[in-house]
């Protein structure tokens, strides 16, 4: 054998050995924030849910059309009295540490959500009083009262299952989370990166095409995009609306978008302390005038390049729970002026507290100009977000331009902001209307979607006239990615699901 042949042979051998290593594929995702605790029971941030979507499967998932679809549970049904949810579990599922997923694991997880100190899930599933194990692959969630939003909760963090043994091991679980999803946790460097690697025994492994996923929190949207443009990232979330055109003009990139479940609006102090004592807080005609002075379409065009969805309800148009009979009222400055005159407040002064986010501040300025034409003297109070939250809870505000990130079930978008018994930390307007309460409670217990929509329509009749919140727009989830990335589907909940994602 000549020396040349030996070298060629060695090269071939090296290529065979090194081949798989070189072929390892990594998907790098740019996040807008650094997630908080990586424990589904304790976690609270939206961005954390994006990481969970790759790591922790849920009992049920949602489709892009917001239907519930199987994930760890393959089928389910409500008991006749609607006080029990029976779920059949997927067979052969393993947690990332090898522990089998079964009915006992579901019982452990639901009980953990309900009992772990500091649990952020307890309130979401508080109607559950216990979990009965019917057999290894069947559980029954027992409820104190019918609670329709439960399934939606189980399609989010409350439905994520962590490995019982790992969760009971004693060490800080959030530092080494173990779930039953497609990728397992490898490493986290705070504020820098979260690294996950493919879980070989994932039940749906054929849908997974990347070996690793790296999440990199990059708060500045310009820098996030620059990283994508320079090839440092493959996919970014929360692309700035003003950057969509740049992405569309770049052949190496593409974008995806979907209307979110979130809303943004003006929350008005109606009864939360002395600051509510002003024409806006006390007279519904002044609130109606403010709403009529705003042109939502123009606001959307000016601030968001027309990309977002104008709205007048807590659910976006197109959502099954959007009340179609109540369309967005057009701008009517003359009527607004008349209403102010009737309320004997032709030039009311309104201070709007606005979190220090450039887009929201810009929207506030547009509102200021529009409402000014109707006679309002709007003063903008730019306040850092955590401080604004504190002031709102204390009632130290007149109006607050703020949003809600949205929930799959409509109950999550309305109950805590409008019910008399809602936590005062959320219902910061202290709005309370017995008829609204009655309908909200009825919508919680009604089983069919059509019944629930009927109750929410009645809620809307009252609420949209009382106007504790003037709903303005629904943001869109905007993503940008390398043109080589295939299989990306945007979902209304904004989460990035790794199933089906692959690189050309």
């Amino acid at each position, binding site marked *: 054998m000549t020396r040349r042949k030996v070298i060629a042979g060695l090269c071939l051998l090296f290529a065979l050995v090194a081949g798989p290593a070189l072929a390892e594929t990594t998907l790098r995702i740019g996040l807008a924030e650094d997630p908080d605790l990586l424990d589904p029971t304790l976690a609270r941030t939206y961005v954390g849910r994006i990481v969970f979507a790759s790591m922790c499967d849920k009992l049920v998932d949602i489709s892009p059309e917001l239907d519930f679809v199987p994930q760890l549970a393959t089928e389910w049904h409500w008991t006749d009295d609607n006080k029990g949810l029976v779920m059949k579990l997927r067979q052969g599922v393993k947690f990332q540490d090898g522990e089998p997923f079964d009915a006992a694991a579901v019982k452990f997880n639901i009980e953990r959500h309900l009992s772990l*100190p500091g649990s952020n899930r307890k309130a979401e599933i508080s109607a559950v009083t216990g979990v009965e194990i019917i057999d290894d692959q069947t559980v029954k969630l027992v409820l104190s009262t019918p609670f329709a939003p439960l399934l939606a909760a189980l399609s989010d963090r409350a439905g994520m299952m962590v490995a019982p043994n790992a969760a009971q091991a004693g060490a800080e679980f959030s530092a080494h989370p173990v779930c039953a999803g497609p990728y397992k946790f490898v490493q986290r460097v*705070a*504020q820098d990166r979260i690294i996950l690697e493919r879980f070989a025994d994932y039940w749906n492994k054929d849908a997974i095409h990347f070996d690793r996923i790296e999440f990199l929190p990059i708060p500045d949207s310009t820098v996030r995009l620059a990283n994508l443009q320079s090839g*440092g990232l493959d996919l970014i979330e929360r692309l700035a609306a003003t950057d969509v055109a740049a992405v569309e003009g770049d052949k190496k990139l593409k974008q995806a978008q979907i209307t979110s479940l979130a809303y943004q609006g003006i929350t008005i102090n109606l009864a939360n302390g002395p600051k509510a004592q002003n024409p806006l807080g006390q007279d519904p005609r002044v609130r109606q005038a403010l709403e009529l002075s705003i042109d939502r379409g123009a606001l959307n065009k000016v601030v968001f390049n027309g990309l977002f969805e104008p709205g007048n309800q807590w659910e976006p148009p197109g959502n099954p729970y959007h009340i179609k009979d109540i369309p967005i009222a057009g701008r009517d400055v003359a009527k607004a002026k008349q209403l102010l005159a009737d309320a004997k407040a032709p030039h009311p002064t309104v201070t709007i507290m606005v979190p220090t986010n450039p887009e929201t501040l810009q929207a506030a300025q547009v509102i200021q100009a529009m409402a000014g034409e109707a006679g309002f003297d709007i003063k903008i109070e730019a306040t850092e977000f*955590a401080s604004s*939250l504190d002031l709102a809870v204390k009632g130290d505000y007149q109006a607050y331009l703020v949003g809600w990130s949205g929930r799959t079930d409509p109950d999550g978008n309305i109950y805590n902001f409008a019910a008399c018994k809602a936590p005062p*930390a959320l219902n910061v307007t202290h709005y309370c209307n017995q008829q609204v309460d009655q309908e909200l409670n009825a919508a919680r217990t009604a089983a069919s979607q059509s019944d629930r929509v009927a109750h929410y329509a009645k809620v809307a009749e009252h609420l949209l006239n009382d106007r504790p919140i003037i709903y303005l727009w629904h943001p869109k989830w905007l993503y940008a990615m390398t043109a080589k990335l295939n299989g990306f589907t945007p979902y209304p909940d904004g989460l990035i699901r790794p199933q089906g994602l692959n690189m050309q």
Partner: protein
Amino acid sequence: MIAFLLRRLALLVPTLFFVSVLIFGLQQLLPGDPATALAGEERDPTVIAFLRQKYHLDQPLPVRYGLWIKGVLQGDFGESIRIRRPVLDLVEEKLPVTGELALLAFVIAVAIGVPAGILAAVKNNTAVDYGATMAALWGLSIPNFWLGILLILLFSVQLGWLPASGFVPPAESLKQNLLTLIMPAFVLGNAIAAIMMRHTRSAMLQVLGADYVRTARAKGLTERRVVLRHALRNALVPVVTLGALEFGALLSGAVLTEQVFTIPGFGKLIVDAVFNRDYAVVQGVVLCTALAYILLNLLADVAYVLINPRLRA
């Protein structure tokens, strides 16, 4: 020298005590309740109550200060409420990152600032001097975050030479590490180079007019020797102080640059902690930074004495 060092070290204790009170007190002035900020969008009252109790937020201020200081004295700086990690772990993780960035920025600042200052002084009132002064003015006036974004757009997006942001530890890949740090280090070093240039220039101008320099020239020494051996050594005294202070400022002041380039260092840690009302992290990081600052000042004083033997008396 030893007595001097001991005296200075003894002064550390009251200084740090004062700093600790200041950090703790100032932080309380921040509006916004940490428990509400950390309870998430849901703001569940039971979660808020749990967080208040767990992190002693329901205790009076002096008790909370006492608990914190007691922990600090035992080497326990508390834990981050947001991610439940010990503050010291975070400091240990972030300090080398900011330290490396600061060092690189400092090297860039000295490499540009000192020679430019010498040159401007030697070529006083010439085009070289004006050019250097103008460049310094530019360096001082240009905002870090703006320069940072421009550099990213040029070197990462347009030319594709450098990564746009992030950090790779040197142990993982030294080349990648330097590639990620070169832009932020230049942005940071650029402003300090300007300050250094101006200080070196004025110190040199003063020294170059001194009698002993004239004597040195009269002795027939070359201009190069006069400048580098005789003038520079004396001119460097204020520059060294400035250098130490600026290095301290770099450790705590890389805030904007770290934000723009997403470098997981001290600056980013502290900004995120302030926004999240993660009190223990803010307190721990500021205390460590203050300690570093004080120690660097001490080092500057020692360097003074070493450079200028007349101060030893």
